[in-house]
């Protein structure tokens, strides 16, 4: 009876998200053809390359945040190495074009396969441990990747970064005039990533991954294999991150070592937590909001108003990352569900349903699985 009541109204309203989603995608798709100005948020009217490039970047990071949310929100794996796979996509495409001389589409394919192989190897090892140690190990792997990229300047361009070999990319994706096409390309990437994430979340695999997040022991007792399910989810998330990396490479016509750094992973984490862990739309909101804020705060940091302030105010205000870090801390401490979680909780409470926050439940699962650790001398 309770089950029916919980599902009843949902089934009735289930077409609403689909319609809203489709309408949003349609709106985003025709945006380059419209002349809308949002001063203070977007630098130029929507049909101009400046705004389109910014929105494209937002969508790339939204796709990346979505892939990370699959990892953290659905499978409950706190990885600090997600940038490695994003970088693998970006550098993979660059290297495939520059050193193998293949055309764009096979290049993208090579980049995705490369990301998948790296994810499989590193994921299989890292999943020997779980919880916090897993976070440390993935961080170490990403760091090794970052060192490799910085050292082998012959292949990756080292600190200078790698620029896109434009001769091998079709003309319609090159240059400021074609920002519009790149914008549509990233929109397609975002939609693909969203659909794959949706598919994984609603599939048997996704259920198994979520069950494993809640109680790994019980899943094992049922005769299922949590390790395999988690590894598959990990690899899928990594390939999606590589796809976002490919889009980033095309959009920026190049990449720098920051694309594989721990900094970027932390940035993704900030986006996902800001948007709300465990909510697909939250990840998108987080990715877009973070990118816009970062861009806006950088503009404010360089403005004359800030330059005229006394040091105590000027220094913090001229560091966008400081402000974003503080915002992140505040969200974690006072708004643990992020934007989406808070709205969802408010909505559920209004309808008298039970509220659960994703991070909190992950902690509970952790506490159950945790073996005692000791300090020994």
């Amino acid at each position, binding site marked *: 009876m309770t089950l029916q009541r919980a599902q009843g109204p949902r089934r009735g309203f289930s077409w609403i998200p689909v319609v809203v989603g489709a309408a949003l995608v349609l709106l985003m798709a025709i945006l380059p053809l419209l002349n809308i100005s949002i001063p203070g948020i977007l630098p130029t009217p929507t049909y101009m390359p400046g705004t389109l490039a910014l929105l494209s970047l937002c969508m790339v990071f939204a796709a990346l945040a979505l892939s990370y949310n699959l990892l953290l929100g659905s499978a409950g794996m*706190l990885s600090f190495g997600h940038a490695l796979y994003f970088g693998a996509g970006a550098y993979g495409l660059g290297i495939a074009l520059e050193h193998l001389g293949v055309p764009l589409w096979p290049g993208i394919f090579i980049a995705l396969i490369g990301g998948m192989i790296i994810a499989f190897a590193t994921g299989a*090892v*890292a999943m*020997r*441990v779980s*919880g*916090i*140690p897993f*976070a*440390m*190990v993935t*961080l*170490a*792997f990403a*760091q*090794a990747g970052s*060192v*490799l990229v910085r*050292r082998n300047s012959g292949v990756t361009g080292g600190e200078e970064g790698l620029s896109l070999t434009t001769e091998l990319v079709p003309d319609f994706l090159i240059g400021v005039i074609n920002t519009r096409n790149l914008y549509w390309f990233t929109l397609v990437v975002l939609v693909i990533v969203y659909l794959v994430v949706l598919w994984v979340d609603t599939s048997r695999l996704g259920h198994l991954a979520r069950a494993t997040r809640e109680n790994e022991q019980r899943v094992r007792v049922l005769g299922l294999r949590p390790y395999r399910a988690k590894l598959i989810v990990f690899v899928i998330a990594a390939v999606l991150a590589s796809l976002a990396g490919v889009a980033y490479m095309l959009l920026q016509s190049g990449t720098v070592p920051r694309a594989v750094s*721990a900094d970027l992973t*932390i940035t993704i*984490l*900030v986006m996902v*937590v800001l948007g709300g862990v465990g909510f697909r739309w939250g990840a998108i909101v987080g990715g877009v909001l973070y990118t816009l804020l970062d861009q806006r705060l950088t503009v404010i940091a360089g403005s004359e108003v800030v330059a005229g302030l006394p040091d105590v105010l000027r*220094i*913090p205000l*001229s*560091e*966008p*990352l*400081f*402000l*974003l*870090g*503080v915002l*992140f*801390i505040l969200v*974690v*401490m006072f708004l*643990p569900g992020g934007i989406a979680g808070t709205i969802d909780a408010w909505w559920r409470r209004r309808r008298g349903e039970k509220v659960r926050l994703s*991070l*909190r439940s*992950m*902690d509970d699962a*952790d*506490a159950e699985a*945790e*073996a*005692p*650790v*000791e*300090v*020994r*001398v």
Partner: protein
Amino acid sequence: MSMLVLTLITGVGLGALYFLVASGLSLIYGLMHVLNFAHGAFLTLSAFIGWLVAQALGTASWGSFLLSILVGALVGAAFATLTELVLIRPLYERHIEQVLVTVGLSFAAVALFEGIWGTDPINIAGPPWLKQTTEVLGARIPNTYWVLMIAAVLVLAALVIFLQKTRYGMIIRAGVENRSMVTALGIDVRRSFTLVFAIGGAAAGIGGVLAMHYTTFVSAHLGSTLLIFAFIVTVIGGLGSLTGAAIASVLVAVLQQFANSYLSGTGDFIVVILLALVLLVRPSGILGRKA
């Protein structure tokens, strides 16, 4: 031969530095199950303040060098205590959120340090003796390595004595073993959390000032680089085990130095391979308890 000795001793010296950072991390994790990403920020701030102190008193004298280390330890301890009280304590028992908060803190702190002290590394100076070398079996060992080793041995000894002999050390060890039991006995375990954070922060602060002399510069990113190696060391040594952290520090650093000198600078990479091997063979680390 001299090359071998040089590599070995510099490896142990670097291991001493890793231990200074990793000891605090390992203690904090062992007691509270918090992975402290802000540890690098403690270290960096201590290095900057230590450098300011040394500059004010004249960099060449030993007095200012020792004082800068002391100030570094105090700054590290104060920063860590504040972090525990303001950020960690309100999120009691919520480990993932605690990790996220320290991530945010390190994110914000690095940006703030860049804002205050600039993005470029600042070259520093110390007592002239640190720049010289001492000859051991034909190998000329830079003197900074000796200082690192002495500091690490002192910190290790102090920690061991503290944990074994004092009342608070005993509470901490008991708290790690079974926290609810200690609480049931009427002891406020949470006070020892703050204490552990302060101790870890002080060790990181000493490590920060010395790391600055080791690299001969100080920048906002000093801590982040070291922190990753400290993470690797704590995982290899076994989370929560102080002895494990000490052994793993030396092991990792010596291996790293050997790979750097004999295998054309692949040190960082070899360390990660070692980490992968340890995880495959023994996921709980060298001295970690079997999960």
